[in-house]
């Protein structure tokens, strides 16, 4: 037996174990910091840095100093910066690889702080925020420019009349060609001469003359009949052409009303935008904030949403962040989430005042903890507002009944000069006064039902337009807005976090709409008169030309009548 045992091996084993634990303890602070940074970067998609981590064995706890979480959309800024985080760990669960924190203190929370180095992680795409569409168009009320635009418009009436003019040219050309081929007055003279010779001979020689010229008379009659027929055919064709030209002209004139309607629709000032003018004022400020907030929700919500995936039948598992493979879930006698904070006390260090609050029961595995996560923050007598109250609930305990709720109430937030861009060259400034803000955001089973209300009190509004369009509408809106000091803005969000509709309503809408409506109505009447006048002018010129040419064509028919009369007269005198 002795030859199988190495007694000194026990000493070596103990030395190795002590050495490994010693090294681990020395490096533990760094290991903890690295694990927090790796996990944080995986979730956020930007640099997470821990200034210093400190592990204490008795009592078992960790202190983190200067934690910085970079903003993936703005890498030179931190989303959150925390001066100090202290927490105690439940040692029993550490052996089960579970981090159970009974109490945590988070001191000196700051938001949107500047970074010295970029927090971008190469290869990670930033969250892209949908930009609001700049779809507001100032109605064009400059009538001199309007005339120029309408002059250049393509009109169906004008096109129709021009087509008739072209047809007239074609008919004229065809007539000229036919006329050259038709029997003319010279032909009639020749027939008359031949008829005169025959008649003179018959008068002289009586019956013998008649017999001698019988063939000639027959031939002459046939020739004249043929010419009459030819002339009548051409005359009839010409009449049909003239009728057709008249019909086409009348049809073209039927487009006059349609042209007027089309141009009115195009050039009459559109006042629909003014019914919801507040949308254009606040869209870039509010819509983008909501877009960004919901993007973050879409990114973080899945972490709460049963990160374990179905593997097979009723087997579930999750991919560990710091380890390969899949952790398959088995039922536990004492089920505990992998990471759980029972209570985290927060204190915000703002230059503007103090905010404090708490987060309860934080875990991404609420199905295991059976507890929803709640957040509550309160601040009073702050520099920027009279009070701030935030309460939130992330309830993912039951997979089929998911409720996320956030209520924020800010009372009398002071308004610093805030600039709102309505369109490219039109800006609005709101300053002075205060605003009460209430956010009530509910997402129930993936459906948003949220209401936000801003109540502005005692504000001063002014606007500046630097564009080229000299619009009476802008100056009217400017003048009514400057008189407003109290107003509300209501924002409703509906749909899903990835496909949502936002509506913005305000009492500004009615004030602007009322002011603009009368101006726009007067301008609309002027526009109609201009359009009608321009179309009529263009139409009259063309109609005059067409009617003159049709008159000339009618005269051409009369020329044929003269020839026909002559032919008929010759026939009459022939025996």
């Amino acid at each position, binding site marked *: 037996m002795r030859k199988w045992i*190495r007694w000194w091996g026990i000493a070596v084993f103990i030395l190795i174990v002590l050495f490994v634990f010693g090294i681990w303890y020395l490096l533990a602070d760094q290991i903890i910091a690295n694990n927090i940074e790796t996990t944080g970067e995986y979730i956020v998609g930007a640099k997470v840095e821990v200034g210093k981590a400190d592990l204490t064995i008795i009592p078992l706890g960790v202190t983190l100093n200067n934690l910085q979480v970079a903003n993936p959309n703005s890498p030179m800024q931190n989303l959150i910066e925390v001066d100090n985080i202290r927490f105690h760990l439940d040692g029993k669960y550490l*052996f*089960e690889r579970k981090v159970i924190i009974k109490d945590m203190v988070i001191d000196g929370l700051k938001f949107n702080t500047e970074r010295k180095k970029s927090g971008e992680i190469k290869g990670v795409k930033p969250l892209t925020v949908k930009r609001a569409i700049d779809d507001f168009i100032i109605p064009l009320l400059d009538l001199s420019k309007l005339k120029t635009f309408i002059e250049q418009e393509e009109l169906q009436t004008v096109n129709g009349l021009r087509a008739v003019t072209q047809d007239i040219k074609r008919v004229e050309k065809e007539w000229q060609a036919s006329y050259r081929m038709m029997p003319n007055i010279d032909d009639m003279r020749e027939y008359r001469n031949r008829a005169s010779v025959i008649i003179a001979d018959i008068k002289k020689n009586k019956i013998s003359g008649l017999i001698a010229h019988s063939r000639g008379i027959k031939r002459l009659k046939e020739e004249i009949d043929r010419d009459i027929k030819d002339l009548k055919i051409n005359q009839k064709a010409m009449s049909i052409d003239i009728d057709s030209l008249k019909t086409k002209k009348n049809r073209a004139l039927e487009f006059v009303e349609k042209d007027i309607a089309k141009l009115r629709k195009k050039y009459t000032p559109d006042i629909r935008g003014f019914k919801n003018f507040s949308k254009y004022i606040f869209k870039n400020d509010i819509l983008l904030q909501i877009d960004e907030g919901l993007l973050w929700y879409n990114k973080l919500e899945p972490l709460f949403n049963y990160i374990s995936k179905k*593997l097979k039948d009723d087997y579930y*598992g999750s991919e560990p962040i710091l*380890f390969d*493979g*899949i952790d*398959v879930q088995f039922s536990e*006698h004492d089920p505990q989430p992998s990471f759980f904070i029972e209570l985290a006390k927060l204190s915000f260090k703002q230059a503007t005042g103090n905010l404090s609050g708490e987060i309860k029961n934080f875990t991404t595995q609420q199905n295991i903890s059976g507890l929803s996560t709640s957040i509550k923050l309160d601040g009073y007598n702050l520099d920027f507002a009279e009070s701030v109250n935030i309460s939130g609930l992330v309830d993912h305990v039951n997979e089929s009944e998911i409720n996320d709720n956030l209520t924020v109430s800010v009372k009398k937030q002071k308004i610093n000069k805030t600039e709102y861009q309505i369109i490219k060259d039109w800006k609005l400034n709101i300053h002075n006064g205060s605003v009460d803000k209430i956010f009530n955001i509910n997402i129930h089973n993936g459906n948003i039902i949220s209401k936000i209300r801003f109540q502005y009190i005692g504000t001063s509004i002014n606007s500046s337009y630097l564009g080229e369009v000299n619009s009476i509408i802008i100056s009217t809106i400017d003048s009514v807005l400057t008189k407003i000091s109290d107003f509300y803005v209501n924002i409703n969000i509906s749909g899903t976090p990835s496909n949502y509709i936002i509506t913005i309503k305000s009492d500004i809408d009615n004030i602007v709409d009322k002011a603009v409506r009368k101006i726009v109505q007067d301008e609309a009447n002027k526009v109609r008169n201009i359009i009608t006048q321009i179309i009529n002018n263009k139409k009259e010129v063309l109609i005059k030309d067409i009617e003159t040419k049709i008159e000339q064509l009618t005269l051409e028919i009369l020329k044929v009548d003269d020839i026909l009369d002559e032919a008929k007269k010759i026939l009459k005198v022939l025996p």
Partner: protein
Amino acid sequence: MIRQIAKLIRILNSETAPINISLAICFGMVVGFTQMWSVHNLIILFIILFFRVNLSAFILGTLVFKSLSFLLNSVFHQIGLSLLTAEVFRNLGTYLYNITFWKFDRINNTIVAGSILVSIVGFLPMLFLLNFLIRKYRKHVLGYVRKTKIAKALMSSEFYHYYKKITGFKDVL
């Protein structure tokens, strides 16, 4: 590394019991295949040091099988997944998972479970196979190699003696 290989060759060629060498390599396989910093490997380390298992063979076995494990991770994952989600394993898996030792050892992880299963299943066959190969090697290959001109030339060369002198090695062959 070269020193360990040389040591292993020397042990192979010595009178050391084949079971000592094959057992060391098999333990090296368990440590190499499974997660390095785990409780079961701490126990194996104790066994290796306490019992007279050949350390050079263990170190070399660990290095070789650890290198192999990087290539076999996906295989371990598949085997582990099949094992952990097998209905027959449910009760045993639940039982093991509720023991702190196994939970700390990440027994519910597919790669860990797969690599442990491969190591356990492969342990005895590998042990007998290596035993058999060592015996065959000593009986047939070693005698033949010793008689070859190259081996004779190598063992009588100045370089070999010089190397033995500065490293303190005994005859490899």
